[in-house]
C-alpha cells in the first residue's frame, strides 16, 4: 500500500523539504534601510549574485548588463553605466520557446585601485572608473566569467574563465600578461571560486577539488594541493569542487570542497595543516579566532581557527541550502532557499532573528560594509540593506 501513502507526499519526500522555522524567544529587531530591484536576477543562470562594497558605495550589476553604484546609506544611484549588451530574442514562430537571452553580466563585480571590473557571460571583461562609471577598457576571454575578477594591489587583474583558464590582465589597458590553463572534470558544480591574493601569490580553487597558487608576476604555478580526492563510481559521486570563498590568514589558507573536506594549508608551500570532514558548496568566513561555514545539510559550524575543532554547531536550519555565513557586529548572518535572512549569535550560534526578503532563494553571500551595513541580493534581483541590529 505504498501507492496510497505515496499520494500524500510520502515521508521520503518530507525528508527533502526544508526544515520548518521554529519561533524565536525574543527576536532582535531587524528592519531594512532601503531596497532596490535589479531586474529578474540570475536565478535562471544558477549564479550566486552578490554586491561589492567599497566604503560608502555599493556596486551591483542588473539583468540589462549595466553596472550601478549606489549610496550605502540611502540606496540612491550614484552612477549607472552600460557594461555589456544583452540580446533578448525568441523567434515569433516558435511561440512555445521562451525568448532566449544571450549575454549579460554574471557574478558580482571586482573592486580595487579605483576601478570596478565586471565579468560577462560571453567572456567580456569591462573595467569602469569607480567614481564616474566611465569605461576605462574592455577585453574578452575565452569563456564566460562566473566568479568576480580580482584586482590585486599591484594593479594586476586576475580573471577566472569558465573553461578552466586563468587570465592575468594589465590593470591599465586590459592587455593579456599571462594565461594559466588546467583541465576540468566532465561534470562540476555550477559556479567558480573567486581568486584571492596574498604575498605575491594568487590562490584559486578548482573543480577537481584542488587549490592552485600562481605567482602574480608571471602566472607560473607556485604550488598545487588536492583537498578532497574525487572518488566514486560515476561523475555525480565524484563532484569535489572548491567553489566557495577561500580565506587567507597570516600565513595560512583555509578552503572547503563540496565533497565534504575542509582544509587549512600553509599559504607559502601548500603544506596541509589540519583538515575536517565538513564540506560546503559555499565558502568560509574567517574571524580572529574562528572560521564559519554552512554545510550542504544546512548546519552552520563555527570552528577553531588553529585546530579545526568545532566551537558550536547550529542545525535548526537543516536542508535550507544556506549561503556562506557573513558577520555583522556580533551576529552571523546566512541567507536560505526560501528568501529568509537568519541572524545567529556569533558566540554560541543560537538563533537571534530572521527577516524574509521575498519568496526567492538567496544564493550570493551577504556583504557587510566596514560600517556594519549588511547588503544582500536575492536570486530574483531584489537588493536590500540592513543596518547593524542593536
Amino acid at each position, binding site marked *: 500500500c*505504498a501507492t496510497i501513502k505515496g499520494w500524500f507526499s510520502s515521508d*521520503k519526500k518530507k525528508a527533502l523539504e526544508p526544515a520548518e522555522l521554529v519561533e524565536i524567544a525574543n527576536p532582535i529587531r531587524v528592519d531594512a534601510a532601503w531596497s532596490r530591484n535589479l531586474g529578474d536576477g540570475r536565478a*535562471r*543562470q*544558477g549564479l550566486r549574485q552578490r554586491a561589492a562594497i567599497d566604503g560608502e558605495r555599493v556596486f551591483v550589476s542588473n539583468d540589462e548588463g549595466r553596472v550601478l553604484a549606489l549610496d550605502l546609506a540611502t540606496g540612491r544611484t550614484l552612477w549607472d553605466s552600460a557594461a555589456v549588451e544583452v*540580446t533578448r*530574442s*525568441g*523567434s515569433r514562430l*516558435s511561440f*512555445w*520557446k*521562451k*525568448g*532566449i537571452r*544571450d549575454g549579460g553580466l554574471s557574478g558580482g563585480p571586482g573592486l580595487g585601485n579605483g576601478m570596478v571590473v565586471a565579468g560577462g*557571460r*560571453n*567572456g567580456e571583461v569591462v573595467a569602469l572608473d569607480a567614481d564616474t562609471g566611465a569605461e576605462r577598457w574592455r577585453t574578452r576571454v*575565452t*569563456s*564566460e566569467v562566473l566568479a568576480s575578477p580580482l584586482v590585486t594591489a599591484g594593479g594586476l587583474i586576475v580573471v577566472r574563465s*569558465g*573553461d*578552466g583558464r586563468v587570465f592575468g590582465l594589465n590593470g591599465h589597458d586590459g592587455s593579456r600578461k599571462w594565461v594559466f590553463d588546467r583541465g*576540468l572534470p*566532465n*561534470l*562540476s*558544480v*555550477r*559556479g567558480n571560486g573567486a581568486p584571492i591574493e596574498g604575498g605575491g601569490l594568487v590562490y584559486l580553487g578548482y573543480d577537481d577539488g584542488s587549490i592552485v597558487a600562481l605567482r602574480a608576476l608571471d602566472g607560473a604555478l607556485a604550488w598545487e594541493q588536492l583537498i578532497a580526492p574525487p572518488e566514486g563510481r*560515476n561523475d*555525480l559521486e565524484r*563532484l569535489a569542487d572548491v567553489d566557495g570563498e577561500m580565506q587567507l590568514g597570516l600565513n595560512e589558507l583555509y578552503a572547503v570542497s*563540496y565533497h565534504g573536506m575542509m582544509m587549512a594549508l600553509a599559504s607559502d608551500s601548500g603544506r596541509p595543516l589540519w583538515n575536517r570532514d565538513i564540506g560546503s*558548496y559555499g565558502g568560509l568566513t574567517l574571524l580572529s579566532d574562528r572560521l564559519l561555514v554552512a554545510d*550542504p545539510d544546512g548546519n552552520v559550524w563555527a570552528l577553531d581557527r588553529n585546530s579545526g575543532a568545532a566551537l558550536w554547531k547550529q542545525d535548526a536550519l537543516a536542508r535550507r*541550502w544556506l549561503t556562506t555565513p557573513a558577520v555583522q557586529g556580533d551576529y552571523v548572518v546566512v541567507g536560505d532557499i526560501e528568501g529568509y535572512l537568519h541572524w545567529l549569535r556569533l558566540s554560541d550560534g543560537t538563533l537571534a532573528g530572521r527577516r524574509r526578503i521575498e519568496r526567492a532563494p538567496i544564493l550570493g553571500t551577504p556583504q557587510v560594509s566596514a560600517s556594519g551595513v549588511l547588503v544582500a541580493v536575492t536570486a530574483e534581483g531584489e537588493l536590500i540593506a540592513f543596518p547593524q541590529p542593536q
Partner: protein
Amino acid sequence: QNFDAFQVADIRVEGLQRIAPGTVFTYLPVERGDQIDRRKTAEAIRALFRTGFFSDVRLERQGDILVVVVTERPAINTITLTGNKDIQTEDLLNGLRGIGLSEGETFNPLNLDRVTQELLRQYNNRGKYNVSIVPTVSNLDRNRVDISIVIAEGKASRIRDINIVGNETFGEDVLRRNWESGTSNWLSWYRRDDQYSREKLSGDLEKLTNFYLDRGYVDFNVESTQVAISPDKRDIFVTANVAEGPVYTVSSVKVSGETILPQEELERLIILKEGDTFSRGLVELTSDAIIATLGNVGYAFAQVNPVPEIDRDNRTIGLNFFVDPGPRVQVRRIEFSGNTTTADEVLRREMRQFEGSWFSQAAIDRSKIRLQRLGFFDTVDVETPPVPGQPDMVDVKITVKERNSGQFTFGLGYQQSYGLITTLQLVQNNFVGTGNRFALSLQHNSYSEQFALSFTDPYFTDDGISLGFSIAHSDFDYSDRDANLANFNNAVSSAEFFSLIPLTETDAISVSLGIDRNQITTDDFNTPPMLIDYLVDSLGDRARYPQYHVDNDGNPQTDPSNDDDDPSTTDPLTLGPYRKWNINAWRLQLGWQRDSRNDFLMPTRGLYHRIGAEIVLPGSDLEYYRINYNFEHYWLIRSWLGLRTAAEIGYGDSYGDTRKQQCRVYDELGELTTEFENCGLPFFRNYYVGGPNSVRGFEANSIGPIYTFGDSYQQALGGSFKTAGSFELYFPTLFDNRGTRLSAFFDWGNVYRGPDVWEAKTLRLSAGISLTWQSPMGPIAISYAAPLQYERHDQIERLQFTFGGSF
C-alpha cells in the same frame, strides 16, 4: 588441490543437485584414462566455471580417482521490481534477461552488480542522475533465491540554461533552433527536451558545427564545453565555447580522377561556383550527385573525395572533387524478406533493377518508391551487400514490414451525413497476397442501400497494364431529410470494365466502358418541379402510378369522394403522386494521369494530375458528358511541416438530341423564368460539394443552388460546374507511427449551374484542423472546421468524422 600428475582411472562428481552428472562430463575437458597434471586441472576448473552453473569447483584425488567437488549456484525463483515509474517493468525485465538474469536461470552474484550498472545507465540516459537502485537477494530452500530490486527514481535533472560563448555573427536562438536539448519550457513535459543526455548534447554540437560549415566558416571549432550541476543536483547548466573564424569563399572548382563520363558532364553537377561562399552542405550534395550519377551506370562503390586547397591569407578555398569510380558492378540476386503474406512476384514485378544486369542506383531507388506506392508495406528497406568472393557483384536484399492493406469492416459504421450505416465491407488491396484488389461491399444507411463487387489485377500484362471489372446496384431514396438532396428516388445498377495503361513511369491513360441503368421515381408534391420538368422535357411525360390500399369495402382504395361501400362495384383508382423514368446509358471514360507521389497512404512529396472525360455514348436515353480535372501537390517545407494543395474542377453538359431538347429555366432561388434553354447536365449526374470528404464545415452535398419548399425544408440541387480545393498544412513527424496525421486545412468550393455564373464571392470557404488515423479497421478521419465565407441559408456542420472509409 595441488597434486602431481597421475593417470585418472575414474571420475566422480560430488555436490550436484540440479545439474546432471552427464552435463559435467560433457563440459569437463578430462576423460577416463587421461594423464592429468597441474595445467590440466586449472584448465578443467576454468571450463566448469565458464558454464556459469557453479559458484565453486575443486578437484581432489582419491587414489587414482579424480573427484570433482562442485557447489551449484542457486536458481532464481522470482524477480520483483518496485518503484520504477519512468521505465516499464517489462522493459527492465527484458534488459535483465539480456544479461542472463531471468526466472529459472542460474543466479550469478557477478550479474547483480552488472544489473545495477545497467539500470543506472538506462536512467542516466533519461537524465535521471540521482536515482538509487538497491538490489537484495533473499535465499530460499532447495538452493533458490528471490531477487527484489528497489528503485528510487528521484527527480530528473532539467537543463536550466545553455550559454554559447563566442557566437558573434549569429544569435543564440538561430543557432539553437533545432537542437534536441533545450531549456525547460511549457512543452517539456511532452518533448522531454530539457532532459540532459550526453549523446543529445554531442549531436547538437555537431549540428552547430554543420551550421557554421554550411555558411563558409571553415575554421569554426567548438573549443570546449562545460556541464555543471546545481548543488541540489536538480538543474543542469551547459556552456559551449566556440571560435567562429573567418568566412571563406570558393576560389576554384574542378573534377579530377577517373570520371568515366565526360568531364564537363560531371562539372555541370557542381552546385558551388567560383565566388560563392563555401558551404560543406553543398559540397556534400555535389559529391552525392556525382556518386549517384556514377552509381546509375554500374559503379556501386564510386567514391568522391572533395580535396580542399585552403588559402588562409585571402580566405579562399579551392575544391577539387577527386573521383574514384571503383569497379563496374553487376547484380547477382534480388531477394525479398518479411513478405509473409505478399507473393514474391508481386514485389519483383515492381523492381526496375533486374538480376544479371549492371547495377543502377536510380533503378533501385525507383523500385523502392514503387514498392512504397503499393500501400502494402509500412517500411521498405533496401541493402546492397557485396557478394563474398566476387568483388564486382552485389546482391539486393529488400526487407519489407507488411501492414494490413485492406479493411474488413463488418457491422456498424456512422457517417454524419448518411446516418447509421450497417455495413459488410471487405476491401483487400493485396488479396491473399496476390497483389490483386478485391472489394465487396453491402451497405445500408438511412437513405440508401448499396451493393458493389469489384476486382482488379494491376498486372494483367507484365508491363503493368491493369484490368478490372465492377458490378454495382444502389437504391437512393433522397426523400430522406438528412441527405439534403432533392427529393427523388434513384435506383442505379451498373457494370463496368476498366483498365489503366502506363505510358511512362509516372503517366498513364485510363479507359473504361460500362453500362448503367437509372430508375428515377419522382413525387409530384415533394420533388422540386424543375427536376420533374427536366425529365418531362427531355424524356417525355410519364403517367402517375395508381395507388393501392384497401378501403372499407374490400376494393382497391378509390377517391374518398366516390367510395360507395359496395364491394361488387369497381371504383376508379386514385393516382398516387409517383412517376417513374428509366434511363439507360452506355458510359465511356477516358483519362490521362500523372502520379509521382512517393507513398500510397501518407505521401510527403510528389504531384498528381488527372484529367478525365466521362461520355455517355450516342444512342443512350440521355446523351451527356462530364469532364473532371483533379490536382494534388505534396511537398515538405520543413522536415516537420508538409503542405498539400489540391484542386478539383468539373464541368458537364449534354450533347446531341438531349441538348437540342429545350428545358425550362429556373433562377437561383428556384423561381420559374419564362424562357427555354437547352437541357444541360441531367440533375441526377450533378456535382455536389460539401461534407467530410469535400469542403469541410458544411453538411454533405449542401452547397450550391437550392430549392426551398414550404417553410424550411431545403433541397440542394447540385450543379453542372464544380470548383473546389484545399490547402492543408500537416505535421508528418508529430506522431511516431506513420499511419496518423494531424493537419490544419483551408477548404474552398462551390457548384454552379454553369461557368458563366461562377463568382469568387459565392465560393464557400472554411478552415479548421483534422486528424486522420489508419486504423486496422480502415481509415478514420475527424475534423473540426469553422466556415469563413458562407450564405445565410447554408447548413453548417462544424464537427465531422468518417469511419470505415467511404466506398
